[in-house]
């Protein structure tokens, strides 16, 4: 997914992603393209540390497909910001 909201993954979008991922028992991983290492998508502190900016590509993975869809939806909605 590409970050499309102008302000990037600041505190609020990070919290929304963490909330969405936390609804699922299964692990949900998140990483920024070009950066090594997966982070826990349930952790707002982890997501913030991605420093995702407008235009960055973000990759999400999980055994649970629905979890991925939930997160994708947030990105598509630009976190309700625009």
């Amino acid at each position, binding site marked *: 997914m590409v970050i499309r909201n102008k302000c990037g993954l600041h505190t609020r979008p*990070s919290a929304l992603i963490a*909330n969405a991922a936390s609804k699922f028992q299964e692990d949900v991983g998140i990483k920024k393209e070009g950066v090594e290492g997966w982070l826990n998508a349930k952790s*707002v*502190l982890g997501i913030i540390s991605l420093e995702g900016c407008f235009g960055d590509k973000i990759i999400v993975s999980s055994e649970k497909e629905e979890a991925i869809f939930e997160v994708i939806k947030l990105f598509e909605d630009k976190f309700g910001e625009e």
Partner: protein
Amino acid sequence: MKKLKGIGVSSGIVIGKAYPFKKEGLSAVKRAIKKDGVEHEMAILNIAKEKTRDEVYKIRGRILEEFGEGFADIFTVHLALLDDPSLLPKVKKRIEEERVNASYAFSETVKDVSANLIFSNNKQAIRMIDVIHDISEKMLHYLGERERIELSEIKEKVVLVAKNLTPSETVQLSKEKVAGIVCSMGGQTSHAAILAQALRIPAVLGVQDIEDTVLLGDTIILDGISGVVIINPTLKDKQAYEEKAKRAEKDIKKRERLLHLPSETTDGHKIKLCANIELPEEARLVKQEMAEGIGLFRTEFMFIERDGMPEENEQAEVYSMVAKKTHPYPVIIRTLDLGGDKLSFVLRQEEENPFLGLRAIRFCLKYPHIFKTQLRAILRASSQGRVKVMFPMVSSKEELDDALLLLHTAKEELEREGIPFDEEMEVGVMIETPSAALTANILAPLVDFFSIGTNDLIQYTIAIDRVNPELAYLYQPLHPAILRLIKEVIDVGQKNEIWVGMCGGMASDPFYTMLLLGMGLKEFSIAPGVIPKIKEVIRAVSYQEAKGLAEKALLLDSAQKIEALLKKSFPQELREMIRK
């Protein structure tokens, strides 16, 4: 006397007594725990977490009610943080492994997390640290580590001076007790700034070491616009700022008073003031400025800087959102006003004279699939509020005929598909070419309204490129040719019983208000920020004298003379509005 400079984040001038607000750091006393005490520490950690969560929920609820979702969302971050797998689980691990008390384990973990954020150089870190501190202060309180200093206990009206204020602290402040805020941390985008604005408490942030410089009871001046902070000012400074504060207060009062007054002349002639907007979020300005709708919603933003054309659904959603927000007032949606040079999803063609080229309605008629998609989206939105559509750059009846035909086709399609729309949706033409203005009587029977776009009308009538600085002196809104065209369009509108408004730059300049009013303009669609100014002029003049002025102006032979006449006739008490 000491003069300091910070970042003004919430406007207003305050002179008051300083109240330094010192907080303990995030440290906690370390105690060793026996093996059988671990369970107890875990339990009080969980209780503290639940109490903190309850408190955040309560604050969030209050903010939601008072200021809306945008502000309440700050506290969504608090909640996510409380459940963060890299926070409390780490504290638990620490309690277990190091055999220490919960509050110490907590404070150490938080210090680590904050330090990591600070060292990461992350731009978002500051806001996150804000939230971490907020949560930590609550947790440490509920863990029994400390008493809390309640800001709500401040007795007299003071200027609050602190290192930083957490979001929860800021929202606890009441305007009655806190006249202003000065902090050494934070900036334009920090939570404290956003909340201070919402609470309308003047604030200056980012004033270095302010909490160590100020003593209880010091006199302090803060200017929330320039960011100036003066501690124990000289008498001269104090008087100057008192004067400034008085003026600022007068301006605000005037604005607020105007907000609720109708836009009508002294003899009761009513004028409609609407807002021009570019982005859907700006729809909220309609309520804020008490405008009577949106007179021009530009739709270009959806089309530029993207790979493909915005789909019908996406467009319909945006238009509907704006229509709903503006309801019960109408919104006039202008169809795409661009040339192919700005769109990456059509074949680019170099044009020698883009302003005279394939743009706006011409472009739309050449690419009917793009145009029809937009018309369908606008029609769909018309079932969600009061929507009107307006075509830009029309220069002949044929163009208008073609556009109306396509609109008709779009309606038929929607009807067949059983999709609701407003069958009576008003259709208008933007009058911005001399040919449209001169043939207004031909176009009028086909539409419900005209809206005059002065920027292009001036450029095309006087034949000047309005972005060429060498020609700036020729850009004369008061050129007799322009006034005659405007007058002609308004007269044709009256004869054909359709309303005529103006959405160009001329309508937004208070200098021209009286003239346009006198010429018979019914609706001014203007930049939201100038609504109070235009309203003030309208309320200061009578329709009779405006009509007299317009008649005189139309007889003069040059822009200079007309300008002189307008200057002379401008309401005395509002003279400072005139820039020229």
